[in-house]
């Protein structure tokens, strides 16, 4: 449905998007996720027609689009700040694209009513945007973007301004409408949770480069590089060196510890690696407990945060060169809670530890980390 082939955009000396290639299947919900300044908005603006690529092609429905003006493209867009016309009622806002696209005037009122009903706003049709709540404004914006039956729907972080509860409701609402209409959708966000919840496929971008494109589960389970591993989920990293490798498993020394990691990367013995382990895959327990997993290290609790459904620990591990690992302990009220400065043992399975070839990787800025993460 949407083909993006080798698209680049340079501002001055900065490559906002470099050689981006991706495709979106008909009816798919694709999310482009990355920290601010990663190039996702530039990519979206080029798809919408507000900007032109310096190189590469954009095809929508098999037709080359990157030289077609925005108003001639069949794309509905929901803007970050919604951009509802304040001097028009909800119904007039929704009717606007129909008038501009020369729909048969006799059909317009019916279509407007249908789409306002789709977003459950039928009784608010005569209100101006400022007389509607944040969530209702979102619904008007999505009705306006869909009413003319576009080939493609673009979402430019429209949920980022909402409070958390409303945002989660609207994520499901957007998903419901998208599936009901089967409209191909590209969503842009910096919120990894939103990406995981809403998408059929996720594209992670950083530094203008597509880092990985995958379905949400694969992306979470098998990140292809340290950036993706750190950006999606709460992941602790520490350096190590490969001492032995089989197709099934990699043996790594890190600090004084010898660990087993997931195999398959063909790193080669002696290679320097970055090890990644997710916070929820680490089991925390007393040092004298029976061993549960292949990997075990001893540490000291440095920080403890109670988040209700989970306890978040930051544990310093002297045996890993002093690395601090983030640990989620779910259902903390039913078993032991560890105090700050208390010695503990951390354990995890070999299949959960990922060894990436060490190399310069883009840093993850803390502002994009999810709530509850601790600095490493």
């Amino acid at each position, binding site marked *: 449905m949407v083909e993006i082939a080798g698209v680049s955009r340079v501002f001055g000396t900065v490559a906002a998007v470099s050689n981006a290639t991706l495709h979106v299947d008909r009816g798919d919900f694709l999310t482009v996720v990355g920290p601010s300044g990663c190039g996702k908005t530039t990519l979206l603006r080029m798809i919408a027609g507000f900007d032109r690529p310096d190189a590469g092609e954009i095809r929508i429905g098999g037709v080359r689009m990157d030289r077609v003006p925005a*108003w001639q493209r069949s794309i509905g867009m929901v803007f970050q700040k919604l*951009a509802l016309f*304040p001097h028009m009622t909800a119904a007039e806002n929704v009717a606007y694209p129909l008038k*501009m696209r020369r729909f048969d005037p006799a059909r317009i009122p019916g279509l407007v009513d249908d789409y306002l009903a789709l977003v459950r706003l039928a009784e608010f049709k005569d209100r101006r945007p400022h007389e509607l709540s944040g969530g209702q404004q979102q619904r008007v914006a999505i009705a306006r973007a869909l009413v003319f039956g576009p080939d493609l729907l673009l979402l430019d972080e429209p949920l980022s301004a909402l409070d958390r509860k409303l945002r989660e409701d609207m994520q499901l609402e957007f998903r419901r409408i998208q599936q009901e209409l089967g409209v191909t959708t590209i969503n842009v966000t910096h919120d990894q949770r939103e990406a995981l919840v809403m998408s059929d496929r996720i594209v992670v971008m950083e530094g203008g480069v597509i880092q990985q494109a995958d379905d949400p589960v694969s992306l979470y389970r098998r990140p292809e590089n340290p950036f993706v591993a750190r950006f999606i989920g709460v992941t602790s990293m520490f350096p190590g060196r490969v001492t032995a490798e089989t197709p099934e498993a990699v043996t790594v020394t890190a600090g004084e510890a010898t660990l087993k990691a997931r195999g398959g990367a063909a790193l080669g013995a002696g290679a320097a690696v970055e090890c990644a382990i997710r916070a929820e895959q680490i089991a925390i327990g007393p040092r004298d407990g029976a061993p549960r997993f292949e990997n075990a290290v001893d540490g000291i609790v440095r920080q403890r945060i109670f988040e209700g459904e989970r306890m978040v620990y930051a544990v310093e591990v002297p045996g890993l060169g002093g690395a601090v690992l983030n640990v989620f302990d779910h259902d903390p009220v039913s078993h032991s809670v560890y105090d700050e400065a208390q010695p503990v043992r951390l354990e995890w399975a070999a299949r959960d530890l990922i060894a990436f070839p060490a190399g310069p990787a883009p840093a993850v800025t803390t502002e994009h980390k999810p709530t509850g993460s601790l600095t490493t």
Partner: protein
Amino acid sequence: MSHMKYPISWRLLDALEAAAAVLWPARMRRLTAWALLAPALFLVGVLVIGLGYMVEYSLHELDLSTYRLKEAYSLTNYQTILDRPVYARVLGRTLLGAVLVTAISVALAFPYAYAIVRTPSAMVRKALLVALFLPFFIGQVVRAYGWLIVLGREGLVNSALAGMGLPTVDLLFTYPAVIFGLVQYMLPFAILLLVPALAAIPEDMELASESLGARWTSTFRHVVIPMAKPGLIGASVVVFTLTLTDFAMPEILGGGTSDFIASAIYDSFFQISNPGLGAALSMVLVTLGSLIVAGVFLVAGTGTLGVRGAK
């Protein structure tokens, strides 16, 4: 002295606050707003008193034997204005001029203001702003005399025409010359009032309109102009009232052929020494101007000036 560790600016502000607490104690706080309003209220008060005197003057006929205003109250001065067709003509010319100048100035100012707000180039924006503010350094009279030099019988335009072997034309001392002079005088005011109104329209609004299928002409008509309404009303009211009361341009560029009402008022006071008639003419002008502006606000709503936010 632990507080000595704080930056000097903090300690200065602390001292100022302590001094303020002595000079203007907390129980006086609720008077602060009135105290700040006082100078403005004083100025407006003086104006209202002046206006009161003008009303008083306008109700006394001139005694031609003494060249003083008679003691008795009468509406003779207003009757004179109604009786002499010259005043209707001058008033009509002034009103038409104000309407024309407003329409032309706002129409020309709109694209200029839009360019200032939307140009992607900082250089272009700076150039446009400098060109906008430069005329403010040159007074109206100086500018009018400048136009005399350019448009005069032996001025730049006619020299150029003569150089090309074309007949010279009389450009000065005509109604169009006055309108032209007023437009170029009012243009910066109109732009200055439109820029904030246009800057208040998020660019996303235009992009949204475009992505919804509107070409730029439709976007302008259906989105930009309606959303710029507060600025358009504000600019129109200011240009209209300034033109309605203008004196120098009609006087200098009209050369007596295209007097506006302000010239007639001046002549009444200082040429024929009839302050009663001059005051009456002033009252007519003030009333007319106020009624028109009130009418505009009544139709457009005062909210359009952005006083109460989006409407």
